[in-house]
């Protein structure tokens, strides 16, 4: 399947911004389930300096700065991506048990596991604590296969938490999400990652898109898609496996990855510093995911 994704970000400032420096994680990367065929990025006003780079986690990012005064910033990214059908529909009930996975996490000496240990640690936006551990524990019996336990955790978050875009912001602490049982995809991904890390497993954050299908018989609305987030867990010797707690499923063809990191902070779509611009700003984001061809 080939998708065409258009992601437009618009900022409007109260007063003109005289100077800005930004780092955008908006260019989809290649993964073992997808190949990025092309990406165009168009920024208005035109940056005086811009460069595409690879970050620490091999994600692509776009660094740019604008020196002309502007009240409006628009970043328009269009990408074509081939998503591959997962080669093997993995069986959740075989593979490392929780106890075995935890033990191998520390004992295995292969490079992949050694490097994955980074994702067992706390990260700036995800701190383990007792409440999170207590919430996670019931799904992770020692003898149970790890992936089946993670699948159950994914379902529990889906069932027990309410999707509520009005509740959280990018600054909402995980504990509040847990306490109020509310949040958005980013919060649910963070929560699942925190649960897994609190038990000694490696888990990472995945940002990307989800193709949404209109209700039967209706036309799809332009701009109705959104950027999305889910997580992946590492099972030593077996690799990384993705889960989507917001939709209670296993990412497959309709999930398109942009970037991977320890948490949202590593892959923030747009971060940066502006000079002037007043105190208020409005942000508008529109995403369209369209399938263009069968592969």
């Amino acid at each position, binding site marked *: 399947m080939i998708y065409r994704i258009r992601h437009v970000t618009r*900022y409007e400032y109260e007063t003109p911004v*005289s*100077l*800005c*420096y*930004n*780092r955008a994680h908006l260019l989809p990367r290649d993964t073992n389930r997808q190949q990025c065929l092309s990406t165009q990025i168009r920024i208005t006003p035109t940056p*005086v*300096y811009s*460069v595409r*780079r690879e*970050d*620490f*986690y091999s994600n692509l990012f776009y*660094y740019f*700065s604008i*020196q002309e005064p502007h009240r409006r910033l628009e970043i328009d990214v269009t990408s074509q991506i081939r998503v591959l059908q997962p080669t093997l529909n993995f069986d959740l009930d075989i593979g490392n048990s929780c106890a075995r996975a935890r033990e191998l996490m520390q004992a295995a*000496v292969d*490079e992949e596991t*050694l*490097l994955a*240990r*980074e994702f*067992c*640690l*706390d*990260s*700036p*936006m995800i*701190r383990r604590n007792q409440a999170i551990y207590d919430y996670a524990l019931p799904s992770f019996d020692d003898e149970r296969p790890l992936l089946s336990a993670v699948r159950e955790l994914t379902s529990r978050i889906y069932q027990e938490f309410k999707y509520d875009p009005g509740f959280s912001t*990018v*600054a909402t*602490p995980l504990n509040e999400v847990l306490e109020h049982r509310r949040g958005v995809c980013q919060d649910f991904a963070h929560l699942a990652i925190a649960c897994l890390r609190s038990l000694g497993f490696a888990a990472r954050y995945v940002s990307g898109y989800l193709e949404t299908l209109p209700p039967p018989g209706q036309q799809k609305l332009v701009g109705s898609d959104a950027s999305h987030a889910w997580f992946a867990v590492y099972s030593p010797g077996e690799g990384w496996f993705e889960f989507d707690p917001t939709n209670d499923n296993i990412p497959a063809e309709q999930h398109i990855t942009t970037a991977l990191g320890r948490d949202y*902070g*590593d892959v*923030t779509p*747009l*971060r*940066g*510093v*502006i*000079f*002037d*611009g007043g105190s208020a700003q409005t942000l508008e984001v529109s995403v369209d995911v369209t399938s263009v061809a069968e592969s």
Partner: protein
Amino acid sequence: MATQLSADTPEMVLNYPRPDTFYDEVYGANGDTRQHWRYLLDGLGSLGADGLRERQRKAQRILRDDGATYNIATAGLGSRTWGLDPVPLLIDSEEWSRIEAGLIERAELLDLVLKDLYGPRELIRHRVLPPELIYSNQGFLRACQGVQIPGEKQLVLHAVDMVRGTDGNMVVIGDRTQAPSGAGYALENRSVMSRVLPSLFRDSQVHRLSLFFQALRRKMASLSPNGDSPRVVILTPGAYSETYFEHTYLANYLGYSLVQGGDLTVRNGYVWMKSLDGLHRVDIILRRVDDTWCDPVELRSDSHLGVPGLLEVARAGNVVIANPLGSGVLENPALLKFLPQIAEFFLGHDLALQSTQTWWLGDPDDRDYVLANLNKLIVKPTTRRSGEHSVYCADLTPEELDEVKRRICDDPIHYVAQQTNLPGSSPSWQQQELLPRATVLRSFAVADQSAYSVMPGGLTRVASSTEQAIVSNQLGATSKDTWVLASEPQRRVSFFDERQPSYREDQTSDLPSRVVENLFWLGRYSERAEAAMRLMRTVFIQLNSPAPLPEAVRDLLLKAVTQVTTTYPGFTAEDAPLDQPENELLSVILEPSRAGGITSNLQAMLNCSEETKEMLSADTHRVINDLRDELESLPQFLGSGLAAAPEEALDPLVTTLLALSGLTQESMIRGFGWRFLEMGRRLERTLQSTALLRSLLVPVLDDSDQEQVVETVLLTTEVLITYRRRYRTRPMLNHGLTLIMLDKTNPRSLHYQIDLLRQHIEQLQSRERSPVLSDEHRSVLEALTLVQLSRPDELANSDDEGVREALDERLARIQTLLCTAANAISDRYFDHRSGPQQLVQTGWSEEP
């Protein structure tokens, strides 16, 4: 030998008895004085206690005059003069060559570690280092992956803290790899010691420090990413940084510009310094700002010390930062535990210079050991963080120990423990005698071509008391010069390497505009303070005059105090205590929170002088020091109220301010800095005089009262004597106005001051070719003309309302014009951009 002197004259004896510390620098294992100490101890012995005390006083005086301070976090700016013990630490050349080889080897190894951690991370892949040790460390900056600086070495500067180990050899207790401090203090110590103990120093054949700084300059020049004649700057966090003195000192010594984050800006993919005549490209940044604070775009987003966009310029290779961003990862003390294995991995052998034994709590075996032996250990966090210090567990109560245990068990990977051997001792001069004090040596290495050059010696610090095993400047430790004794006399080498391409440019573009702005305000605040003090002195004299002061005159004078200092409402309030003015007057003088008051102006002025420290000469530092002392003792002087000659309390301050202005006239280079300082002065003096004239001379009083007021004005503006000589008559308003407003020969007249200001503005403008006058030029010309066109006789006339309307109008217009000029100057030359803000406010903490 000093230790064998008889005790006939106790005052003269300088004895250093053998201490019971496990190792002392002076005494060998058998109790004999080590050979290389004998000459110095003999010399100090013949100097005697009195002599040494005198030399120390001299040393402290020089340090103070040099402005050598170490800022204590809790105290004000320029808070503490750097402490120097007049007894140096001696190291013989044989031992030093062993230490030096060890330091070079260590710097080379850490350079390899740095390249690996931000490159292939073989140390993790090959299980030399546990992944958690690196990945959990806040000094490991993922955004710095792949940043490369020119040359073979990535670690440019390396500093090491060493103490004596149990076997008497030096062992390393910590590495400094971000922005090591201390090299400048070592240099200052050396310069002071060679002055206060000149013959001892000369005859001891001490290795010179200048070669190290020569290597540093050579290295900096070689790092240029943009061709020859690179512009090098030193990036300082600012005047509140504890080691700010050193930044100013090194900037002057090395000939680099000293800048703060706000002085730099990133444009078109390069770094630029904002100076008065525009932007100048910066090629190399020698930084004294810690890694994470350097760029709010990609590192700590709440930092105001850095330069937004800096990291990307470094990544693109358009600026070189030394040490490179991310090098703080090497400061993790847990690395000390793994250095032998790392050395084995990279070099195939262990290091010659050992590190102190270190346990990492992230390792289960280490954790068991540490928990069982906690009371013998020091616990340190793996990253230096504000508010978290090393804990000496031996000093703790059982409850406190439990608390430490809980903390390290909750978060083991972020802690290490080290042995608490008391450091070895060396003799330290403590008021009356030589006493043993715990001693730590910080040494410095700089990458030089393909190897490292080590400073011979370094900065020695000694604890302030016997009990103290912790040697910390924040805790009052003092410092020593370190003498590495050569076996033959040292050749004098010139610091400036003739082979280097010389780099000169006119002074203007080397000054960040912030410095110039501070000089401008230095001028303004000192004039404000002076004007307020002059008026205050006159008021005191009048209030305490033998003949009772007529009420109308008194009220007018007191109101003038409020108006000139702008400390409203003060005496202009409805219910102002005009018959009991003492408290309000004292408050205007002493209260730092009363903006416009004397203390407040002087403090603002002192802050400006800190910000421009590198521009000021030693003489100027001395004057500024006096000013600070006098300001501090002012409350004492006035503590007993205003009863007896209170004006005398202000005299020394006025005199010191005059000394300061004399120094700028006589010894300051006529560059941008001087010009703006002068413009600030001229502007402010005119504004102050105008305010004074409006307050005192616009209201009409009875004839005799009027005379007294005119006399007061003449006294305050320092022309009373001239007036008497010239007019030989009672004080009359029209003559007074002639002298104060129009007289071209009176350096305090409005005409004189505004005309000087005009000349400065024209000089600045001559660089631009446009025939259209600037706003400030136009305003000043108009003000000058208004003064010139004044007819004192007319201005002295009053209307029916009891007010001199014409005079008031004229003076008010002049004030407005000068304020317009001041704003125009500020808008044109200084940076008014509001601070940067984050595009996305996440609110989460940057520190995991």
